[in-house]
């Protein structure tokens, strides 16, 4: 326990935040507790209004909690103003100082900390190299592109070597290609600097590809904390399952099967051996689209009809109807001949692997 606590960089302890008062009060955070470890790439993921940015602003010190505590390296900083917290932020709008050059922006934090001139110059050079912006050091920030501004914002926030770097949806203003590049860039920077990153996003794919751990938030609460794999493969609730990736949520029953093994029979007709043999009664299960298999309509298989095929380049999402009322989504990597064989209206056989089924308990 002691060594664990030692590794925690930021901790929110039963944090609540209410904006406004009386009848117009809005509860942005409700009893949120989370420990973010040192050197971790930690993502706060959720839809807009879920409280993720509020939690970030509480860590930065732009807001103060209505209840609970924010701890940095074990010290309560809830009442400290932002300028006394060794925490820096990359803002969604970047918030670069338009009257300063690239260099001036990066040096700002160090100047405010009263560092020596030589040290500032050295760190600025180092940061410019880190984000590959050496050639633009004397430009005004209005004269550089959005992607370059993003890099300056990162360099500016990293220059004072904060204990924690907070990133508030910093990639949302970039186009897809640049966003992918910056995702890799951010991971590289985190590895290179060894600084704890707390990243806020509503983009589940971004969260899955970049994070060491993710906290999924909704309505001011944290629903689940885990690695990307845990969150994706074993979502704790329907909300998390729906929010992270495409998903089929299906109803069915668990029955005794042959040889004492459990059998899962779903209302849509699909069946599989139960991953939890002892379980009985009505259940809801989660099946990811890539865990359903399409084949030739054969005996003993559940037969469906392809209602819609949505092409994604590397793979295709097939919306397959099973009888009158049931529909599932199947993802399949594209192969030669799929386009004709798996056209809309085609009859297909469907197979479900019991190991891929995840029970939902809420």
């Amino acid at each position, binding site marked *: 326990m002691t060594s664990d606590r030692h590794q925690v960089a930021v901790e929110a302890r039963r944090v609540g935040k209410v904006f406004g008062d009386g009848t117009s009060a809005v509860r942005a955070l409700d009893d949120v507790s989370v420990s973010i470890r040192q050197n971790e790439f930690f993502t706060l993921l959720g839809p807009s209004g879920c409280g993720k940015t509020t939690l970030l602003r509480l860590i930065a010190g732009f807001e103060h909690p209505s209840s609970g505590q924010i701890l940095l390296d074990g010290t309560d900083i809830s009442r400290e103003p932002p300028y006394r917290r060794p*925490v*820096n*932020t990359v*803002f969604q709008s970047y*918030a670069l*100082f338009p*009257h300063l050059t690239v260099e001036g922006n990066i040096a700002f*934090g160090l100047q405010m900390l009263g560092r020596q001139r030589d040290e500032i110059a050295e760190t600025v050079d180092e940061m410019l190299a880190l984000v590959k912006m050496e050639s633009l050091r004397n430009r005004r920030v209005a004269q550089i592109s959005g992607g370059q501004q993003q890099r300056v914002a990162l360099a500016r926030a990293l220059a*004072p070597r904060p204990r924690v770097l907070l990133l508030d949806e910093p990639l949302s203003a970039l186009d897809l290609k640049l966003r992918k590049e910056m995702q890799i860039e951010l991971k590289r920077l985190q590895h290179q600097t060894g600084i704890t990153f707390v990243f806020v996003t509503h983009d589940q794919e971004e969260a899955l590809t970049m994070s060491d751990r993710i906290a999924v938030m909704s309505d001011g609460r944290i629903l689940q904390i885990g690695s990307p794999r845990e969150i994706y493969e074993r979502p704790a609730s329907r909300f998390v399952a729906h929010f992270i990736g495409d998903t089929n949520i299906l109803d069915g029953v668990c029955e005794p099967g042959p040889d004492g093994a459990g059998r899962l029979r779903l209302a849509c007709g699909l069946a599989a051996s139960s991953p939890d043999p002892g379980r009985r009664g009505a259940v809801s299960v989660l099946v990811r689209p890539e865990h359903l298999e399409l084949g030739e309509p054969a005996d003993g298989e559940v037969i469906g009809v392809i209602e819609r095929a949505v092409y994604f380049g590397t793979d295709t999402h097939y919306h397959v109807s099973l009888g009158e009322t049931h529909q599932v989504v199947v993802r399949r990597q594209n192969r030669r001949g799929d386009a004709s064989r798996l056209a809309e209206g085609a009859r297909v056989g469907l197979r479900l692997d019991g190991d891929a089924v995840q029970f939902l308990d809420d």
Partner: protein
Amino acid sequence: MAGRRAFSVKDLPGFATIAIACFLVLYAPIVTLVVYSFNAGDSVAIWQGFSWRWYESAWDNRQVQEAAIRSVAIASAASAISTVLATMAALGTTRRAPFRGQMVIYTLINQPLMVPEIVTAVALLIFFSMIKIATGYSGLAYLIVAHSAFCIPFAYLPIRARLEGMDLTLETAAADLYATPWQAFRRVTLPLMMPGVLAGAMLAFVISLDDVVITEFVKSAGQETLPTYMLGQLRRAVSPEVNAISTALLVPTVVLLTAFYLLNRRRS
């Protein structure tokens, strides 16, 4: 070639005629005034050749000298005071989330733009004379205070416009980067708002410099400013000397307004 073109107001019949007429009405009198300031004769209507004599006579006129110095002193003081107050008001009304009663505050700050000047002038006359009687003081301070008051909206509006174009996150970012509130103001807010502040100060200076109505009511004996001196001269005899003073007064106004325009253009 006969393609449809987008609507343009320039295509309306008579557009050019009306535009030219408007410019004539605006500028012909001023051009006339400037031209006759160089008249060699005594008339403001009959041209008798070019001369600097009215400028020389105005320059040598002790009353004009005193009035000019007084005008500049009042305008400088009023411009400085009103700009400081307007800056504080603009910071208070824009560097924060929108708040209840915002429009009321704007209206209160801009009161001098809405209340008829003559009403303010009469009110100040009565109010200041009470103070004069009570204190016995009758210096320039009354004029400076009155001018500062009506200059505030002229200083406030460009400063506010400048601040409204500034991302509110900038001060937050400064605080995040270890700047105390004072440092954030000094290093971020102030340099960014400076063009607006200068523009506001210039506008206030020009507005103070040419005020007649309030000055006429508030001034004590022997406190003529250039505009009130000129008004006084016109009541007696019309001399091209007034044209010369007017032209001289036009120069700083044009210079400051050009600077004001350039400062505002740089914002975009």
